[in-house]
């Protein structure tokens, strides 16, 4: 398996540009064709397939791509990513119902607002190391949710209802789908919108990853102190990672709220943050295709096996443990991350009390920092 994927990757790495772009376009078209009835009965026998594709599948994928920037690229542990999703969702709900802005205006506003909130959270806390950051982000997620719950001016626990849909352009019918009709009944137009948004996000993220910013993130992830010494302004780049991750979460929040009619604070529980984090690590943190695969599986499997309804979460939990034991680097790790992991800390630091074992050349992190 490893040798084969290596060969595929080598082949891919040396493939000429037009071949790659052909594949990209085919993938995009493939994604648009996914909500087909013909596979729906297999993919989602217990729920409507096109709806499932929008939420949870598509939503989880975009959120995972956003969280991947923070966790996978910059190596910062964020346990409260759902906060930015919530801020995006509430932006859509409040600006849409109170100020009557339309979806596209709110999309921009939501992205900016979440980016700002990412900076507000990151500013004072990003100087904290590893696990302190984790609990602070977790706390931030809860602060956002409970503040919404306690504030009657934004609906309190009732949330906000009557959120407008994106403006429709009726009459553009392709294969029997009115593709720009954002109504209630047909989820497919929303799914297409999500695919377009996700594609744009992937292109941006990929650009960043290959730029100076991406290299700075990798340096921070691998050894923050060394990066700082080498002249990388680590704080600035960490903050940037936070802001970009947050704005992707926020954008998804806007798109999601634009379909969902009403939202309330219980849509933004900690469990969602944990699930998205699981998706990132499961797929292969740092590697976008891996993260997409991870998010897809995490979202789709419980829906697919709704028939075993009772036991599906239990099986999911056990599967997470098993996967981490047998493939701790994720299903589709990037080669770079794999190398980092083999060397030791994988950017997140290894566990302490490492027993020097011939197979694992892990460097224990000193307890006293």
């Amino acid at each position, binding site marked *: 398996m490893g040798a084969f994927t290596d060969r595929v990757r080598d082949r891919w790495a040396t493939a000429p540009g037009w071949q790659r772009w052909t594949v990209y376009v085919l993938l995009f078209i493939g994604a648009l064709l996914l909500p087909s009835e013909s596979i729906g009965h297999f993919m989602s026998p217990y729920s409507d397939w096109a709806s499932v594709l929008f939420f949870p599948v598509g939503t989880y994928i975009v959120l995972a791509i956003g969280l991947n920037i923070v966790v996978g690229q910059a190596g910062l542990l964020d346990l409260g990513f759902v906060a930015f999703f919530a801020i995006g969702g509430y932006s859509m709900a409040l600006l849409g119902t109170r100020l009557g802005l339309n979806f596209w205006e709110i999309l921009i506003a939501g992205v900016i607002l979440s980016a700002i909130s990412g900076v507000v959270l990151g500013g004072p806390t990003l100087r*904290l190391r590893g696990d*302190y950051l984790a609990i602070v982000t977790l706390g931030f997620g809860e602060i956002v949710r409970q503040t919404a719950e306690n504030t009657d001016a934004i609906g309190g626990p009732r949330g906000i209802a009557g959120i407008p849909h994106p403006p429709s352009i009726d009459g553009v019918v392709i294969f029997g789908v009115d593709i720009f009709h954002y109504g209630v009944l047909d989820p497919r137009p929303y799914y297409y919108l999500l695919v377009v948004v996700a594609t744009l996000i992937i292109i941006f993220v990929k650009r960043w990853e290959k730029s100076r910013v991406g290299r700075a993130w990798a340096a921070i992830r691998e050894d923050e102190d060394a990066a700082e010494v080498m002249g990388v302004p680590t704080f600035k780049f960490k903050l940037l990672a936070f802001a970009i991750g947050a704005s992707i979460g926020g954008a998804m929040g806007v798109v999601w709220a634009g379909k969902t009619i009403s939202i309330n604070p219980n849509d933004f529980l900690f469990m969602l943050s944990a699930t998205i984090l*699981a998706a990132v690590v499961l797929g292969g943190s740092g590697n976008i295709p891996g993260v997409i695969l991870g998010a897809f599986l995490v979202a789709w499997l419980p829906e697919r096996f709704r028939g075993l309804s009772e036991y599906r979460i239990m099986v999911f*939990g056990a599967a997470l443990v098993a996967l981490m034991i047998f493939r701790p680097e994720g299903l589709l790790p990037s080669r770079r991350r794999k190398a980092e992991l083999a060397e030791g800390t994988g950017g997140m630091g290894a566990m*302490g009390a490492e027993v020097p074992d011939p197979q694992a050349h892990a460097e224990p992190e000193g307890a006293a920092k």
Partner: protein
Amino acid sequence: MFDNLLGSFWPYTIDGLILGAIYGLVALGYTMVYGVLRLINFAHSEIFMIGTMASAFVVMVMGVTKPLTGLALVGGLLLLVLAGGAASAGSAMLLERIAYRPLRKRGASRLAALISAIGASLFLQELFALVIIPYVFNRPQQGRNQMGVARIMEKDTLFSIGGAQVRVDQVIIFVAALGMMVLLDLLVNRTKIGRGIRATSQDPETAVLMGVDIDKIVRVTFLIGGLMAGVAGALFVLQFEVTKFSIGFLLGIKAFTAAVLGGIGNLRGALLGGLFLGLIENYGAAIFGSGWKDVIAFSVLVLVLMFRPTGILGESLQQARA
């Protein structure tokens, strides 16, 4: 706004301290595992839950119909604490064996271990909701419902301070929690195994070279952390007389917060963080309303970390001596 707090300052303080003692006991498990393994043991909240379940099971088996008195009460309480402690310690060691050790041996990242912990946490919750509660507790189809536990001791008022009535069970909980922590402190600072734990958390490689059996140290760490959580579970059942498959989640997050507040990896910090958090929650609730309790707790956490980035007492087990 503040008159509510000032008007009933002592009741808020006492309830805050008792809640804080339970937070502190659970926080010890987080802090010890973190000190030795640098791992957030996310499934620790489920270890606590198992402690409450074991205690609830004992009460059920004893068939208590009315509160016990005298020797029966002492025996019952001991049994409760023993059952909670044993069940939790056992499951904590099992958890280490299954979900963490294989990762440790492979040199997996802490992120992978964290995901494994989240997976284990989900698994254990569902295991209780779907199997243990319906079949062992014989409550079919009610696995997700809250379970009441029969009262085993009369909740009489023992004394009062400044208008606050202090009940017997509250005193027992506070004294037991503090006692456990003093014992643990002695164990870590005065015994050979304690030295091993400190050495491992300081520098595992050197500890190995010096002949410390790291696997054993890790096992003992989980055992002690589990034991503390189990005792906390038993005391929790004694005070609140309810449990549920998901009871650990919120308490676990709070206890972890307490551990970080005090300085994660620091035993005395866990106690201090627990008591501090318990008080903050209650004072905050008194001033702003109970709905804001968690918001205040987390905001204080952020503030404390901004000024003391490694918690109130700073991290690391080896500094616990100071």
